[in-house]
């Protein structure tokens, strides 16, 4: 059995602090669990810097540390807090190279979580918030190798990188394989935790004779429509992007647009509903569940080719 995502993050962080003169910045880092086991138990002298609860300030501090050449790993424990943290990141780190030719490489770990009554602010992925601004690539790794790929990309480049993590990935110790079948009815393009739910939904749909191709998406920006994606869509003539971020104005619709234009096939989008999550379980607004994905795919496969692309499904 391989290492989990959490173990990969922890070991990589330790190496960065020990060998690269790197820094790790975050809030409540040494609290219970060391952020899901992703942070090595190291001291401030070794590079683990506990920040105060001043989110906007903290993002600025991370930017300054990057300008000073420390390639900081800046961790935002709840991705919903990116609404505070985004300002220095998108206005400085992401623009520094374009405006002044000065690199500002921050590795921004923004961690999504959901369920357990986490409520309307702290829950959900928010990678769409960053994707709409120039200057910062965005990825959402869910496996050990994917996280390592993101890290290696960061170390090979001098750009900041937004890494949309999901707590559900931390225990994952396997890799995801794209699924291509000749008789598939639809091609799914799931993102972040939606990938886990899409795999589950595809299993359930197979029982009723609906076959799903799956193209796992890790790099969200820049987003490249591959030959494999185009090939799959040319056969299924129907696609669905599924995301842990909000659907309206979000990455799922944006990427569906790209896929549609490059393949000619109708591609739909499914993400979080356009409403605030409640704390009660029945009022939560989570990543589309397997059941919800199943319902939507059923509808699309049976009548979807008649549904105008971009129309709200369900």
């Amino acid at each position, binding site marked *: 059995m391989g290492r989990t995502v959490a173990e990969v993050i922890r070991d990589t962080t330790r190496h960065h602090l020990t060998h690269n003169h790197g820094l790790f910045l975050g809030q409540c880092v040494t609290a219970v669990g060391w952020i899901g086991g992703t942070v090595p138990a190291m001291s401030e002298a070794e590079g683990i810097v506990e920040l105060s609860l*001043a989110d906007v300030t903290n993002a600025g501090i991370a930017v300054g540390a990057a300008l000073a050449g420390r390639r900081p790993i800046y961790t935002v424990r709840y991705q919903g807090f990116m609404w505070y943290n985004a300002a220095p990141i998108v206005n*400085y780190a992401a623009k520094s190279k374009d405006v002044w030719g000065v690199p500002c490489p921050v590795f921004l770990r923004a961690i999504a979580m959901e369920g357990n009554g986490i409520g309307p602010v702290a829950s959900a992925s928010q990678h769409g918030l960053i994707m709409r601004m120039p200057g910062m690539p965005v990825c959402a790794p869910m496996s050990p190798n994917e996280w390592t790929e993101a890290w290696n990309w960061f170390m090979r480049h001098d750009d900041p990188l937004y890494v949309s993590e999901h707590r559900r990935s931390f225990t994952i110790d396997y890799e995801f394989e794209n699924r291509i079948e000749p008789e598939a009815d639809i091609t799914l393009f799931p993102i972040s935790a939606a990938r886990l739910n899409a795999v589950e939904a595809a299993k359930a749909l197979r029982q009723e004779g609906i076959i799903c191709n799956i193209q796992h998406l890790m790099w969200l920006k820049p987003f490249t429509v591959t030959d494999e994606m185009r090939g799959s869509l040319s056969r299924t003539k129907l696609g669905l992007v599924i995301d842990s971020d909000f659907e309206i104005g979000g990455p799922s619709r944006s990427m569906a647009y790209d896929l549609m234009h490059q393949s000619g096939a109708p591609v739909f989008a499914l993400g979080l509903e356009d409403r605030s999550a409640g704390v009660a379980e029945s009022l939560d607004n989570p990543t589309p569940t397997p059941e919800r994905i199943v319902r939507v795919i059923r509808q699309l496969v049976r009548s979807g080719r008649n549904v105008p692309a971009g129309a709200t499904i369900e």
Partner: protein
Amino acid sequence: MKSELEQRTPAFGLISDVANTFSNDYARKLFAQTCFNHFFEFEVKKAYDRGLMKLPIYLSVGQEHIPAAIASVFADCLIFAQHRAHSVYLSFGGDPRQLIDELLSRPTGCARGMGGSASIHSPEIGMFGHSGLMGDQVPIAVGAALGAGKPVLTVMGDASAEEDYIYGALGFAVTKKLPVLFVCEDNDLSILTRTPVRRSWTLCGLAQGLGLPAVDITDDPWLIAHHVKQFSLQLPAVINIRTCRGLWHAGSGCDGPPEWDRFALIKDTMKMLGLERDALAIESDTERAVQNLWVEQLRKS
């Protein structure tokens, strides 16, 4: 009785005879840099008024001696300022030709035309550009001090000091004992809204509440240099400098004479130091040199 915020005079916090604690040679150099900044800004104004610049400009006229004073005693630092920073750039050794080119939107400008007046920078002198988000240079400066472990200067205005992240930045700097000199050029105006309209507290009160050394003073350059020298040994620290913006927030207009004319007062001090003739020579030589520099640079296509 005036509130603390309204105590604005050219002698506020002044130490008598402070100029005499510095050498005459120091005074000549300080005055020369002040003159350079002063006349440079008036050349910007001339070019702007001739329609040669198609961008907003933020002139430091009235405040141009502050960075000259800081740079005279606080060197080898990283610098994070915001708009109205032409004089910061020049005082710390930024290339004036590249600044002229930047203001003329030329690719040979210090930010290749991307920054304009508000977002100038110079890697050669350790000066980083400003994004345009007021005050965001302050937490970034604190992060740079954390990362680089060397002294950092950050310059803000009295309005930027109200941004919520300034509090967090001051708090983090004092908690981690980071070598940051926070300077507030307090011209009492956010565009045209006076400070007492916007807040009841002072930056120094806030800083002292957090445990930082802080002083609130007028903009006499010898006084500034005196405090900067002292604070450079006990960073982080805050200096709030009451000063007068001579021209509009953006552009080259003027709403009337400033509360006080520091440039004239500096010349009075030079006279008091027995350096009147030196000052006259420095002023005229520098004015001519700056004018020639602009003529030469404008001639380039």
